[in-house]
Structure formats: structure tokens, C-alpha cells
């Protein structure tokens, strides 16, 4: 056989193999382009969702994943969540070696069956069946098949071909079918650069096919993973939720349905509580002052406890129940606070949203569904001529109207008796997130420093720090040693923290000392003048940045430090004043020699929030690098001596 013929034969064989699904069982058939930077490859994923009637949905899943190394194990995702409402009809896994030979079959009874309760949750009926398999060697392939049924049709599974970093996808399909009297809506995200087709075939009304997605890699200062992956969300206008049927096609009608079916009639409390809260606000005329009193009452009298029943259980426990036991989850506590505010005539609305400190995830304005769009509840107090007030009802120590990074700056669903509305929560603007540092220290000729400082933080910077106020002495000491970990042997003679909840600022008043702060170099002393607020963070470098730049929250740091120099030394050299300005923010320092022995160091560092194209990343990184370098600028002192050497 000539070489040419041989090649043709191979090509034929390959194209023939292409028809068979068995190709996915062998690791030898992996497309090379998909293994680069991948820990696992999803060879084939097929999700089919069949809504048989408004209260009967069947989900089937078949997934073949080749795991390339130990970090890829999670990508197998061989697990099914179930609860009182979601039943597992079948589940099975088969393991194949690198050549595609079957080496093990795992049936339902051999899956681990455990409660899905995490440490912080008191009770949840949610359970997981999961595959506990120890790989013998890599690569290996798992085929996982499951089928579940549920009567809830409020949460239709989304089509999410990629669900973690460093995982590539060879083939992923999603099929959905539904009766003619049900209207399906869908919402496509990030499909622009993806090889996909959307059709209908056989009996399936809607089919999606996606091919060849390369792995996503995490990158600093990028939009959240959830917002960059390709995804299609689905919802139906008609659905059943825990026995309550709905017909909605926008957020307004969804809100109305929610209000009428899940909230109404859950607001009554005991007569004692009614009297108590009324007397609490008897002398207040202003609505916000009343609300403040009520919020304080809730904070003082309840605590947060997580109780999860049903996936995404959305109905709050009644205010009466919270009133009795004095605890609840986010839903229960928010509903309770709302009930008390109603009693004293302050209007407020129950609000569903997606809470997460690291990502500001909005509810999609134009696509009404609950599946994956919300995970938390807060309270909205509408205002006529100023920004709305938002209350986090699960916290016992947050100031009134302060929500911090957990729920800030995102679109949320506000539920009113007239229907649902999309509103935007409080954004903490750059100029609100301030940290003002004033202090002084003196340097001895042995290189020791002693000094004191006062630091005042507001906005998101308040949120970052106020919890330190609750720490015990030992833990406070540790926290500050960590903050100034670059000063070897720093010790604190006095630590005072003041959490002013009325003006929402956190003050830290600290007396400190450290030995050998300066560096000795013969008759010279060298020290970094910025002792107390050095920016040491440098964002990671990427040879190939793929995601745009996102700075989620801005801040302003302003420092003014007086430095007393040791006697017997004079300044040999001072760092120059600097001004760095660019689109990301600015950095300014200034050193003034007030006298021969006193220097005043001023510094202002501003980073603004914003979004920029990926090309800007290296400039953004260079900015931080420059600041880190300038924050290390040193003063050189030299001994005043008649016999200088």
C-alpha cells in the first residue's frame, strides 16, 4: 500500500469513527486543540428536558468526560441533587481506561448518598448522590447517566456547556420539549464567538448544539465567570411551584404572582409585638427614623439561621413564626422586618437578588425566570427624592441602610403588591470608599520606630474592616500584625477601634512600635518613608490576556504621616514627589522637610471602578507595579560627624 493510500484509509477510518459515539470513550481520540490548558474534556454532554405537563418535568443527562489529571476530577460532575420534590429515577456511571475499554460500572446503590447540608445550615432536605471513584491512572473517561423528575417547573435547567475553569468541551447538546399550551422563552448569552446551532429536530421543539469550546482560565480583575461563559436560560410563562400555578411573562407579572401566592398573609405578628413596635416609634414622625428603630429592634431580637427546604425554597416562614422563635433565614427575617415596618406605616418591599461579594451579578431585566438568577432576599425602602434605602436583615451588626459588597450595585427584583420591578441597589462610588490615615512615628538611630496612627474608613472600606471591632484582643493583635506584616517585629501598645454606625465609619486608633525598621548601611540609615500604607499587590501577569478588565469598586486612600528623624543624622537624599495619573486612577506623593528632623509624607492613591478592554490590562498592571515601587521609596540619612568615613 502506498503512503497516500494508507493516509486515505486512515482518513476514512477516522471519518467513519466520527459517526460512532464510542469514539468518546477513548482518550486517544481527543482533539489536540482541546487538551491545551485543560484538566478535563467534556466529550459529549446531552441534557434533555421534557416538560410533560405543567407539573411534571423529566430531566435526562448523559455526559462523557475524559479526565486528564487529578485537577480535572471535579469536571466529571457525576452527582445528582435531589430532595423531597426532585426524585432520582436512575443514575449510573461507567469508567473507561485511556483506550476506551470499560473497567468499571457503578450503579445507583454504589453512589454515595449524603445530606447536602453545609456547615452553616441547620437543616436542608437537599441530598446528593455522588460518584466516589479513585482513578487508577490518567487519562480516563467517565460516562455518567441520570434521570430525575420533579413537579416544579419554575426552575428549568439552563444550557451551560462549560461550568468550570480549565475544562474544554468537544460536544454539548441541549434538547427541550413541552406541550403546545405552554410558552417557552429563552435567553442566549455569550454565544457570539461560539460554534453553535439552534434548531428543532425529531420531536424536540428546541435543540442546541455547541462544539469545540476551549478552556477558560481565571484572570485577575475580569468579569465574573458566570457572565463570560456561553449559556442559554429557559423559562415558561406557565409553571407550577410547590403546587401553586403561575402564568407570567414579565417581571411585573412574576412579582405580582410572587406577592399574591408566596408572601401574602404571612405578615401578622403577636399583639404584644404590635404594641411594642408601635410604642418604639411613638415619638418619631420621620419614616426613616421609624425604620431605623424597627431595624435596630430586629437586629437586637433575632438571629440568622439557614434552613433550606426544597431547591431554592422561595416562600418565607411567617412573621408570626419568626416573632415566636426569634430566628429565621434571609426570607423569614426580611418578611418579618417588612411586617413590622407595615405596622408603623413605613412602606417597604421584599426584594430577591443574587448575593455575592466577589461579583456583582444582576437579575436579567429582560428575561423573567428564577432559575439561577436569585439566591438571597433583602428589603427595599423606596424613597421619593433620594436614593432608595436597602436593608440586609440577616446581619445583627450592619448599620442601618448599609449593605456592603454582598448585595451592592446590581439589578434586583423588587416585589410590590402592584407587581415586580427591577431596581438597582446602592452603588458605592469611588469617592465614598475612603480611608484617611493620619499618624506620626519617630525613628531612632538604632533603627527602631514608635508612633501612633488614626485611620478612618468609609463605604466599602468600612465594610472591609468593621468586623475587626468585634474581634477579641488576641485576634485584633493578630489582624494588625498581618496588615503590617512587612514590618518585622511590629508590636502594638494600644489598639482602639470605634464603629460609628450612625455616620457609618470605622476608626482605628493604634500605638505601635517595631525594632530594626530601617536598614543599616555603614554610616547611613535607609528607610521606607511610607511605613503604614504600602500597596504591595501586583496583579498577575498573563502572556495572553483573554478577558476584559473590570474594576468592581473604586477607592481613595489619603495618608499624612509626620516622621521624626534621629538626632545626629541628616537627610542625604529624599524620594522625589510623584504624580502618576491615568484612566484607572491616580497616585500622588509629596515629602516636605518641615525642619532638619521632621519630614511630612503625603500620599493619595485613587483607583476608580470601571470596565476596560483586555488590551488595557498590561497598563493597569503597570500602574499597580509602579505604585508598589514608589511606595517603597527610601529616605537616606547620613551621620553628622566631623570624621566622616
Amino acid at each position, binding site marked *: 500500500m502506498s503512503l497516500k493510500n494508507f493516509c486515505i484509509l486512515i482518513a476514512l477510518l477516522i471519518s467513519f469513527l466520527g459517526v460512532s459515539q464510542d469514539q468518546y470513550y477513548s482518550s486517544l481520540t481527543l482533539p489536540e486543540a482541546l487538551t491545551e490548558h485543560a484538566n478535563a474534556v467534556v466529550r459529549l454532554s446531552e441534557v434533555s428536558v421534557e416538560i410533560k405537563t405543567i407539573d411534571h418535568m423529566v430531566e435526562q443527562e448523559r455526559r462523557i468526560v475524559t479526565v486528564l489529571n487529578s485537577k480535572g476530577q471535579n469536571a466529571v460532575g457525576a452527582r445528582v441533587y435531589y430532595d423531597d420534590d426532585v426524585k432520582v429515577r436512575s443514575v449510573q456511571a461507567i469508567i473507561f481506561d485511556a483506550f476506551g475499554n470499560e473497567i468499571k460500572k457503578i450503579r445507583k446503590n454504589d453512589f454515595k448518598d449524603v445530606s447536602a447540608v453545609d456547615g452553616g445550615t441547620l437543616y436542608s432536605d437537599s441530598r446528593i448522590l455522588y460518584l466516589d471513584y479513585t482513578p487508577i491512572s490518567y487519562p480516563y473517561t467517565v460516562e455518567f447517566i441520570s434521570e430525575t423528575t420533579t413537579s416544579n417547573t419554575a426552575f428549568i435547567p439552563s444550557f451551560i456547556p462549560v461550568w468550570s475553569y480549565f475544562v474544554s468541551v468537544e460536544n454539548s447538546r441541549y434538547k427541550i420539549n413541552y406541550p403546545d399550551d405552554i410558552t417557552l422563552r429563552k435567553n442566549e448569552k455569550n454565544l457570539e464567538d461560539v460554534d453553535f446551532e439552534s434548531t428543532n429536530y425529531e420531536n424536540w421543539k428546541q435543540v442546541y448544539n455547541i462544539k469545540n469550546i476551549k478552556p477558560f482560565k481565571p484572570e485577575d480583575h475580569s468579569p465574573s465567570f458566570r457572565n463570560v461563559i456561553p449559556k442559554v436560560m429557559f423559562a415558561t410563562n406557565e409553571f407550577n411551584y410547590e403546587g401553586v400555578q403561575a402564568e407570567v411573562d414579565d417581571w411585573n407579572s412574576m412579582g405580582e404572582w410572587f406577592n399574591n401566592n408566596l408572601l401574602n398573609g404571612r405578615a401578622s405578628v403577636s399583639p404584644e409585638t404590635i404594641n411594642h413596635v408601635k410604642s418604639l416609634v411613638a415619638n418619631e414622625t420621620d419614616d426613616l427614623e421609624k425604620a431605623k428603630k424597627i431595624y435596630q429592634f430586629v437586629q437586637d431580637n433575632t438571629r440568622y439561621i439557614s434552613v433550606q427546604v426544597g431547591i431554592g425554597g422561595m416562600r418565607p416562614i411567617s412573621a408570626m413564626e419568626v416573632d415566636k422563635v426569634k430566628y429565621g433565614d434571609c426570607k423569614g427575617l426580611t418578611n418579618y422586618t417588612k411586617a413590622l415596618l407595615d405596622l408603623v406605616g413605613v412602606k417597604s418591599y421584599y426584594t430577591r437578588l443574587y448575593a455575592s461579594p466577589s461579583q456583582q451579578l444582576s437579575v436579567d431585566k429582560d428575561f423573567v425566570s428564577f432559575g439561577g438568577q436569585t439566591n438571597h432576599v433583602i428589603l427595599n425602602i423606596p424613597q421619593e427624592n433620594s436614593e432608595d434605602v436597602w436593608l440586609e436583615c440577616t446581619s445583627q451588626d450592619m448599620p442601618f441602610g448599609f449593605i456592603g459588597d454582598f448585595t451592592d450595585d446590581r439589578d434586583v427584583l423588587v416585589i410590590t403588591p402592584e407587581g415586580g420591578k427591577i431596581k438597582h441597589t446602592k452603588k458605592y462610588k469611588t469617592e465614598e470608599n475612603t480611608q484617611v490615615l493620619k499618624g506620626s512615628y519617630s525613628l531612632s538611630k538604632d533603627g527602631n520606630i514608635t508612633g501612633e496612627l488614626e485611620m478612618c474608613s468609609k463605604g466599602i472600606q468600612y465594610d472591609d474592616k468593621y468586623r475587626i471591632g468585634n474581634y477579641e484582643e488576641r485576634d485584633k493583635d493578630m489582624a494588625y500584625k498581618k496588615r503590617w506584616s512587612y514590618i518585622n517585629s511590629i508590636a502594638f501598645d494600644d489598639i482602639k477601634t470605634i464603629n460609628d454606625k450612625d455616620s457609618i465609619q470605622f476608626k482605628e486608633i493604634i500605638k505601635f512600635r517595631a525594632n530594626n525598621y530601617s536598614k543599616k548601611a555603614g554610616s547611613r540609615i*535607609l528607610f521606607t518613608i511610607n511605613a503604614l500604607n504600602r500597596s504591595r499587590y501586583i496583579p*498577575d501577569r498573563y502572556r495572553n490576556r483573554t478577558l476584559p478588565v473590570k474594576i468592581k469598586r473604586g477607592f481613595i486612600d489619603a495618608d499624612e504621616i509626620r516622621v521624626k528623624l534621629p538626632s545626629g543624622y541628616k537627610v542625604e537624599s529624599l524620594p522625589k514627589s510623584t504624580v502618576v495619573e491615568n484612566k484607572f486612577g491616580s497616585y500622588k506623593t509629596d515629602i516636605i522637610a518641615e525642619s532638619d528632623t521632621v519630614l511630612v509624607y503625603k500620599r493619595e492613591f485613587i483607583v476608580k471602578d470601571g470596565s476596560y478592554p483586555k488590551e488595557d490590562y498590561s497598563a493597569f498592571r503597570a500602574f499597580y507595579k509602579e505604585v508598589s515601587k514608589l511606595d517603597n521609596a527610601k529616605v537616606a540619612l547620613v551621620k553628622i560627624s566631623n570624621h566622616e568615613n
Partner: protein
Amino acid sequence: MRINSFIVFVLAGFMLSAQNYDFGKVSRAELEEKFYPTDSSASAAYLYKNRSTYFTYQQNDGFVLVTKIHERIKVYNKEGFTYANKSIPLYKTSRDREVVQGLKGYTYNLVEGKVEESKLKKDGIFKTEMSKFYNQTKFTLPNIKEGSVIEYKYEIQSPFYTNVDVFEFQHDIPIKKLEAKFSAPEYFVFQASSRGFLSVIPKEDKENDKIIFNNKTRNNGRYTTSTTYSTDEVSFYNNISTFDLSDVPALKEEPHVNNIRNYRSAMKYELSYTSFPNSPIKHYATTWEDVVKTIYENPSFGNELDKSGYFESDIDALLSGVSDPMEKAARIFNYVKSNVKWNGYYSKYSSSGLRKAYREHTGNVADINLMLTAMLRYVGLDANPVLVSTRKNGVPLFPTREGYDYVICGIEAPNDIILLDATSKYSAPNVLPFRTLNWQGRIIRKTGSSALIDLYPKQISKNTISLFLKLDDAGSLEGKMRSTKTGHKARNYRNKYNGTDEEQFIADLENKFDGMEIEEFAVSNSKDLGKPVVESCEFSIESQADIIDDKIYFSPLFFFKMNENPFKLEKREFPIDFGYPSDDIYRFNIILPEGYTVVSAPKSKKLQLPDNLGSFVYQVKVNGGMIQLVIDSKINVPIVSPIYYDALKSYFSGLIEAENEQIVLTKA
């Protein structure tokens, strides 16, 4: 009369000072208390903690272990609210299970001067089936406020009487008053072992008891059937230990302590033998010999060591033509490591037999290391199992079966024992995974005898770094680096390097050193465990020196210098655990920028820890346009007693200071 009034007076005085610890008798004083008198930082405290564990006989089930709990907790502030949630783990097997009974709970609050009580109701109690092996009952008390007093009681009935939960006498919050009692019939002989810094000695008593058996006998007569009832009585005595403690301080987590429970005060009762009338004595454990015997006789341990049928042909093939015993050992060790993968479970017993583990290529710790031992024995090596208590499990001070949770393998060589653990890919002979480095293990020999052996490595793990560096007048550095790592340092490196994509590994390094750029990166012996790992690369990095006017200042260690003292706490009560002795050697040759000369350089120096625990040698030589630097930093022991904490802290502080000293150059 005078006498009577005196008595009344004394009684009244007594009543005033005495607390009433009966369930429900929460006092106003307890509710009014604002902070714990001797520890104002406590967020909550046990006002009263009572546990009583005893045996009862139930005619159908035999002996049952009953544990009664009664706890009264004061919540001082919001941080203490978590103590209002309580979780009770309940063990089960396919046949038997533990159950909770009689759970009652109340919250007491002072409302406008009145004591208000709120009862724990059904909706505050949650039962969850956690897994095949245990259930969980959780409850949360209602109406918790700052200042609340919580009180609850319940009873656990357990069929697993060989397994008495540890009596814990110290927690992360203080205890005002603690009473505990353990009572066992004379038939059950328990070994008590205490741990923790606070010593606790029980009061021992005996108390008579009896069991009444109701017998029912059917008499089948010719025309009638009658039933006669009779009772038998068996008298015996109970051994009772009681504990009575007051004002037990809180013991909180500290950094660099691997398991705080090792240090909290507690008492463990382990069944050593049972001796029922008319039955032979059944041993569980009293001495190390018994412990060893019990473990050895467990079919999932000793028996497994004698079976070889399932692997014989494979091992024969593997070793054909090999005669050197150490070569045989090495091949078998690698064979087990590559053929049987660890499933992540610790155990000293095989889970479903070595044959099955061998067939399925996966098993727990015992499956793997007992199989290794069996194979080594099969080829004529003197290999024995070594019981280990992992770091997680704590330190076994007294003979207990549960003191050990892990098993490795030891080959007896003249004057030495070579330790092997085949569960970890990059562990080598005598380089065990970190989890097993915990005091002493116990080797069990074929004769049934056993001996303690040190698990902490004696061999020093070394990292030697050689660098050729060129500094330019802008403060940038170019260099060639070569490092050689042995022992645990090599094992750590292999774990990290072999588990990461090389490109990512390099990127991580570059980011760790703030913008370093690496080229010609190479690693040799990453998989060859017999040799040290060698890493080499070329790199460049900016901003490594301060340039002030015509002078250049830099620390000759550059980015290798240590900046932070790992010991930040002002004082320390627990040993400092380094895991293994180590030696870091740096050899630097630094070429200075052209046209610059050295103005000043640090002096050579030596720091020494007391009792030869460690040393730091720092030598600088200026040689024309070149600086030579040698640093040798040693920690000679794996674990350091807290009495040396201050010395250690100041040693590290001195070390950091030395490493940060500056060289000053000036333009010639």
C-alpha cells in the same frame, strides 16, 4: 433556740452562694451576668455542663450504653449566638443505630425585670441522615438575645457499648461548673486515658446493682397450657468515676498547632476486656501488647498479611532475575504505588480485603500498605506493619486501639528500619507523607511483639540554591539559578510541580516574584525518587535595588530574603511543629554594575538557637567587582518545645534582620 437560728443562718448563707443546677432552675443572677468573671473576652460560657454515661440492661437488646447530657449556657454577646445551635452525631450500622430521647430545651431571658422562658419546640429540631454511617440531630433554641441563658438536656441510647465517646472537659469557651460520671458494670473493664494540659483526676467508687430477668415458661400439659412467670436476679457492682470541676478556662485555637484537641483536657474510656460470669475473658486492650494483639487478630489486619495467592504470579514476573533484596523492595514499592491507588480513606484495617483492592486497583491506607507488607514478606524480606496516629488523630499516649488510625510498612534492616508508605506518589523510603509525621509509630512483628519507632525524620531535608547574578546600574537583575532539593523538600516540590501544567507552574513563579521573567526552565528527576530534584532556570527581574543619587543599595539575598517573622504571637503554649529537620543553603555570586565599588557591606555573622536546635550562618566576601555570599540556615529538629518560643522568635527576627542588611555601592 439559739442553735436553731444559727443553723438557719448558715443554711441561708449556703443557699445564697450555691447555684442550683437542677434543670429549669436558672437564677436571676445568671441572667444578669454581663461577662464571664475571669475571662471578659468570652462570648459565651457553660454555666453548667453535666454528662453521665452508664450501662443499662434491656432484656431484648442486652447491655445498652446511655449518655445523659444537661448543659446550661450563658450567651454574653452576638458572637456567642452560635452556641444556641447544637448538633448531635448519631452513629449507625446496617443493623443498629444510636437514638436521641427526651430532648428538652429552654431559653431564659430577663424582660423588664421578669424571667421569661421560651421552649424548644419541634420546629426547632432537625433530623438529617448524613450518610450510611451517621445521622444527625440538630436543634436551635428560640429567642436568643445577648444575655440569654440556654438550657437543654437529652439522652443518647447507644448499642455500641465498646465505643464510649470522649469526655471533654475543656472547650473554646469557659466552663463554670462541670460534673461528669462514667459508670460501667464490673463485667466491662475500661482503660482510662487523659489528655490535655489541665490534669483531671476522677473520684473512683463502687456501687452495687442488679439485673432482674423476667422468665416466662410455658407448661404444655395434657389438656391445658399454662404459663408460669419467674424472676432471676443477678447482683454485681458498677465501677464509677466522677469528675467535678470548676472554672475551667477556655482553650482556643492557635496558629501553627495541628490539632488543638490534643491540648484540651479530656478523658477517654476504652474497653480493655469483658469478663462475664461463666464466660472466658475477652480482651480488647489494656497494654500495648493487648492493643497489638487485638489489632493483629482482627481479620482485616493480620490475616491479610499471610495471603499471597492473588499477587504471586505478578510479583514473580516483576522480580524475575532480581536477587538484591533492596532492589526487590524498591520494585515492589513502585509496583504497589503505580498499581493500587489510594482512595483517600485513612484506616488501619482493610475495608473489603486486599484481594479486592488489588483487583480493583484502589484501596484505603491499610489495603495498600498491608499489601505492600505482604508482598515484601512473600519475597523473603523482614517487613512488618507499623501503626501510626496521624496528625489529625493526635498523639497516642496510652494503650488504645483507637489511638492509631493509620498503618505504614517497615522493613527491618540491620540497625535500622526503613519506613514506606505506598499511598503517596512522591513519598520515598523514609520520606513519609506529612500526615504521618507524628511522634512515634508502633511496629508489629510476626512474633506478636511490638516496639515504638520514631516517625519524625532524622535525615535533614536540604535545599541548596546556587545563583550567578548580574546587577545593573538601574537595579535590574539577571541570573542563572540552580537548586537541588532532597528528602521532604523534594517531596513537596514534586507534589507541586508534577501536579501542575509546566506553563502554569512557571507563570505562578513569575507572579510570586512580582514580575520576574523566566526562561530556560528545566527540572530533572521530577519522577525519579531515588535522586534529588534539580530545578534550573535563567531569569530577569526589575527593581531589585534602591538607587539614590549616585549610590545603589540592595540586600544581597534579593527576593530570596525572608521578610515576615512566621511567629507573630506574643506568647505560645504549644510545641512548634516543623515536621522535619531542614537545611537551606544559598550560594550567591553577584557581579556588580560596571564602574561601581562597594562602600559598605554587612559583616559575616552567626546566629545559634539554644541546645543545637538550629543555626544561621551568613558570610559575605567582597572580591573586586564581585560579591560572594553564603548562607546556611538549619533547623535540626522536627519539633520544638514551647519553652524555646521566645528564643525561636528572636532567632527568626535576627535572621530576617541579617537577610535584610544592605550593601551600598557608589560610582567610582
